[in-house]
């Protein structure tokens, strides 16, 4: 194993995606996304704006299991309330992050139930606080902490937050824009084939392989001739991540 953890790698890979001047948000159990945002601010995007449902530009001194309470957000530039849900949801964000019990080939996210029906589920998940950002953000990232055949499925049992639905036609028919941009899993970075809007391997993490990704994905990954290796954290990225963003080593 290398000298960085898988979650540190996921945070670094996501941080490189975020552009200076953009407006985005993370969710509740969101240590990896928040680390990505904070790291991006330190490296290349000092003017990255964060505005979740109740706060603007928080300045947490460490990562916490939840990034949606005063431990993480007590210091921020503005404290708002859930009323802002309407403002942010209607205007949209540049980016948001999602995770799910199930993630499917078209990037749909399920947090409601696995098996059975919604009201007679085999397994009931937590549900989701805010689904409006999936449709109202210019793009979103999927960042699961597990990559297995159990959570990477052909079709989710319930669409909590929509990805590309059943592909280009249904996505257009629903009047949707944006959609999932990348999935940064513990094994690989997956992107979406522009023709089918199905997930395919974009890059494989240094500790993994194409075979391992295929073996652990419950659907057929789209073909991609240009698979490369995910670029590991640079010395500078890792130093900033550990010294400033995550001094308690939550991601290690």
């Amino acid at each position: 194993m290398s000298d960085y953890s898988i979650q540190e790698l996921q945070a670094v890979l996501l941080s490189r995606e975020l552009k200076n001047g953009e407006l985005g948000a993370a969710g509740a159990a969101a240590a990896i996304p928040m680390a990505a945002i904070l790291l991006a601010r330190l490296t290349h995007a000092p003017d990255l704006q964060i505005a979740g449902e109740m706060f603007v530009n928080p300045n947490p001194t460490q990562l916490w299991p939840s990034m949606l309470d005063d431990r993480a957000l007590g210091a921020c530039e503005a404290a708002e309330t859930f009323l802002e849900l309407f403002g942010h949801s209607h205007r949209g964000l540049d980016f948001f992050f999602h995770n799910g019990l199930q993630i499917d080939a078209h990037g749909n996210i399920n947090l409601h139930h696995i098996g059975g029906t919604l009201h007679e589920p085999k397994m009931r998940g937590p549900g989701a606080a805010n689904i409006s950002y999936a449709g109202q953000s210019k793009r979103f990232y999927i960042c699961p902490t597990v990559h297995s055949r159990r959570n990477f499925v052909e079709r989710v049992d319930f669409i909590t937050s929509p990805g590309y639905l059943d592909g280009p036609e249904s996505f257009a028919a629903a009047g949707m824009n944006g959609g999932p941009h990348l999935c940064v899993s513990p094994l690989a970075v997956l992107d979406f084939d522009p023709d089918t809007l199905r997930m395919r391997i974009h890059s494989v993490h240094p500790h993994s392989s194409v075979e391992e990704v295929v073996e652990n994905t419950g659907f057929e990954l789209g073909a991609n001739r240009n698979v490369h290796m995910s670029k590991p954290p640079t010395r500078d990225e890792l130093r900033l991540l550990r010294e400033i963003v995550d001094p308690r080593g939550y991601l290690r």
Partner: protein
Amino acid sequence: MSERYTKQIAENEIGACLRAQLSDGDLLAIGGLFKQGRPTALVREVIKADFKDLKVSSSPGSGFDVDLLIATGCVAETYCPAVTLEERMCPSFRHAVEEGRIRAHCVDALSVVGGYLASANGVPFQPVAAWKGSDVPKHNPLVAHITCPFTGETLFATRALRPKLALIHAQEGDVYGNLRHLSTMTYADQMIARASDFVIASVDRIVAPDDILSRPRETSVPNIYVDAIVELPYAAHPSGSFPHYSIDEAYIDAYADLAEAARKGAPEGLRMFLEQDVSGCASQRDYLSRLPDTRLPALEEEARNL
């Protein structure tokens, strides 16, 4: 000259106040978010008063206290977008839905917050433009399609949510019911207070009315929306009441272990916990005395050092 009416109630009056305002089957709203600013001491009073078939709503994120209400059999329906302990699931919620003992309505943040907003504004619904592609609005009992009377555009409406009773927690308040959140975030507390028929607030401490008068911009919920206020030490525990005390993750985790064991067929530990440490507590002091001696000072220190 007559005295101004004080809304402060004593701890031993909470049960009677709850029973006067809430009946079995009513909608109860709980303030705070996930593990912060939750009126947990008041929720334990609801459990002790043995309510049945309650409908429960909150801000978009709920966890420990809603799970506790479900574990004690008080709840028939939830209108809670997310019910989770964040790092792990809520075992009693999950167990009850999977066994068909409660109805977990498929709602999201905008429908619930929009519902409070409509109720607070005295209108039957709040228009919403933001849902596309998700299965949630299809199953959401609060949501219907509407046509814009100006443009003809198709929109969603989310139905006004009017809780019979709301329980909220703030760090400070005065005897007239003015509340002051010292926490950075105030969640949906202001909207829930405006949306509900009756509001009971717990506070960490009662401050002098002159103190409220000296900083009116900091009054987060004015007394016209608060019907009763009670001062209780650590009333939010095990949720956090920032900046006074942080979140007792260990307490919540210990409960979740017991509830998870119950879900998997070993209910004895959970039953003992609920009987002894929830229903069996004679008072808030009694409840707090069961915590390890070092716990509350550690939570205060964590909040101080943030």
